């Protein structure tokens, strides 16, 4: 039986972690994810978890401690944001290539500069090639649910990859909203215990972890890792199906909102998707067939599946909440246009970079983009393929 509660996205993460009771939580604080270890420290102090809670001196060390713990066969977690995630960069690749299923909670925040504490995805997008699975959430419920599924996906024998669950810093991490929590015992049963097949000090089969990979081996290791990321797609769906049967809430690679007959659509991530849905509802009242595709899994990227849902759409805007400085569009646009490149039927596509450093994204902002798409759908000039929303003239 679900428990009706209200809490912030950060507290939802901490609550899920309390219920999961991982072996190790290595922590170093940074805004806006600090509350996650802060709540968890209380659970440790109150004896509600058996976790080894390690306070370290940097994010490089917090993830390194997780890597050590995972190599020894433990279930390890940490949390961070922004510059903290950047500081982990080197070891993110280590965790992924060692195939250690660390789970990392990210309350996404802009990177400097100018220095800024508010939300965008410049931190998580900068790590899109690290080999971590990335799942994104619209609200506290989704970040909680993603975390309940995270270990099962990451630790699956055909995957064995680390995973980051991303939520919007402040916008959801600090917003108190209603949430349906699950009973502790039900969560423990769903997540299960971690029994890795091999680990560092397994006496029957001790491992060497992190050896040098000469050219004769490096590429095979990378391809094996790439294959695991491909297999993660199937596992994400299987775990989501079991989650639906157990707790009743549905998840996939993305959520389609009113896409059945949509002429115009936004491809968007995180909390902005909810705002875009409200805009789509209002436009439908005016006879505009608007829809929203909310990306949940960015790594692995569900390219073919996205082609399928966009095939009958006339014009779509990819909404990028990070500036990739590619001079031709943000990272979500690169993925989406790459996925559509050989599709026989596909929409006209534009990229709209928005919401950087916490710039507010409103129903009106979403409507403005939808209306531009309506023009394109009717044959108007596309105009700039890559543009920025709501910027004052420079």
């Amino acid at each position, binding site marked *: 039986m679900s428990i009706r509660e*209200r809490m912030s996205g950060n507290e939802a993460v901490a609550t899920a972690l309390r219920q999961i009771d991982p072996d190790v939580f290595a922590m170093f604080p940074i805004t806006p994810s600090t509350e996650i270890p802060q709540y968890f420290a209380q659970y440790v102090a109150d004896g509600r978890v058996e976790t080894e809670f390690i306070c370290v001196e940097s994010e490089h060390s917090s993830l390194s401690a997780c890597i050590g713990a995972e190599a020894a066969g433990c279930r390890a977690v940490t949390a961070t944001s922004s510059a903290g995630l950047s500081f982990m960069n080197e070891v993110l690749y280590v965790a992924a290539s060692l195939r250690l299923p660390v789970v990392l909670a990210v309350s996404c925040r802009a990177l400097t500069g100018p220095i800024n504490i508010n939300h965008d995805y410049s931190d998580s997008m900068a790590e899109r090639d690290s080999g971590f699975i990335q799942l994104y959430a619209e*609200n506290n419920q989704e970040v909680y649910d993603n975390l309940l599924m995270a270990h099962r996906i990451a630790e699956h024998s055909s995957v064995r990859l680390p995973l980051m669950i991303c939520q919007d810093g402040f916008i959801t991490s600090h917003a*108190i909203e209603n949430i349906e929590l699950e009973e502790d015992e039900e969560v423990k049963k769903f997540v299960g215990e971690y029994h890795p097949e091999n680990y560092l000090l397994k006496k029957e089969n001790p491992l060497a972890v992190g050896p040098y990979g000469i050219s004769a081996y490096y590429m095979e290791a990378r391809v094996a890792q790439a294959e695991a990321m491909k297999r993660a797609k199937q596992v994400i769906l299987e775990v989501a199906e079991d989650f639906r049967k157990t707790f009743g809430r549905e998840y996939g690679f993305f959520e389609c909102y009113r896409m059945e007959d949509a002429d115009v659509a936004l491809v968007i991530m995180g909390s902005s998707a*909810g*705002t875009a*849905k409200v805009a789509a509802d209002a436009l439908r009242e005016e006879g505009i067939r608007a829809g929203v595709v909310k990306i949940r899994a960015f790594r692995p990227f569900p390219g073919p599946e996205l082609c399928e849902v966009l095939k009958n759409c006339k014009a779509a805007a990819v909404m990028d909440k990070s500036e990739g400085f590619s001079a031709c569009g943000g990272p979500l646009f690169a993925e989406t246009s790459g996925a559509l490149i050989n599709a026989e039927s596909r929409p006209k596509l534009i990229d709209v970079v928005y919401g950087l450093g916490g710039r*507010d*994204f*409103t129903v009106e902002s979403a409507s403005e983009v939808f209306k531009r798409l309506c023009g394109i759908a009717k044959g108007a000039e596309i105009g700039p393929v890559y543009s920025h929303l709501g910027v004052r003239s420079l």
Partner: protein
Amino acid sequence: MGRLTEVRWHGRGGQGAKTASQLLADAAFMAGKYVQSFPEYGPERSGAPITAYNRISDERCLIHSNIYEPDFVAVVDETLIFSVDVTAGLKKDGAVIINSAKKPEELREALRGYEGRVATIDARAVSMEFLGRYFPNTPMLAALVEVSRIVERERFLSDMKESYGHKFAKKPQVVEGNLKCLRAAMDRVCYEK
């Protein structure tokens, strides 16, 4: 979406406007509503103007943006009305509730032509009388509930009694004072004559 009520809180860093917004969310949550309570973060400094928000609805709120056309505005520090446009976008059929010992008509001039209802509550006096210290949030919360009717009065008071019972389980002696403080604040809201 069901009936949606939007509230904006103005306060100064350290005064607890964010906490007040969380208390309102708690009260509405206990009454069975869907709630949002969220602060707007900037370079926070103690004493600097800050904003917090609430959305309260019968269905889950999907919008995650700031609130530009609130139904109600609560001002925790009355000096803010001279430096911040607290009634910006405030709906005419809504109201602004200001923490002040003054009468509403004395403050209207500072409200830049706002045409809707103005109410005041002397949160300091109520708080000092019943809590013995200045906690503006408790009277502000009660005054906002009284003016907005987001939660029906007796329901609000009985939910809060239960909530305080849990919150102050180890200090039951403070529950009564807090409840009296809420009730008095609701009774002492001043409207324009």
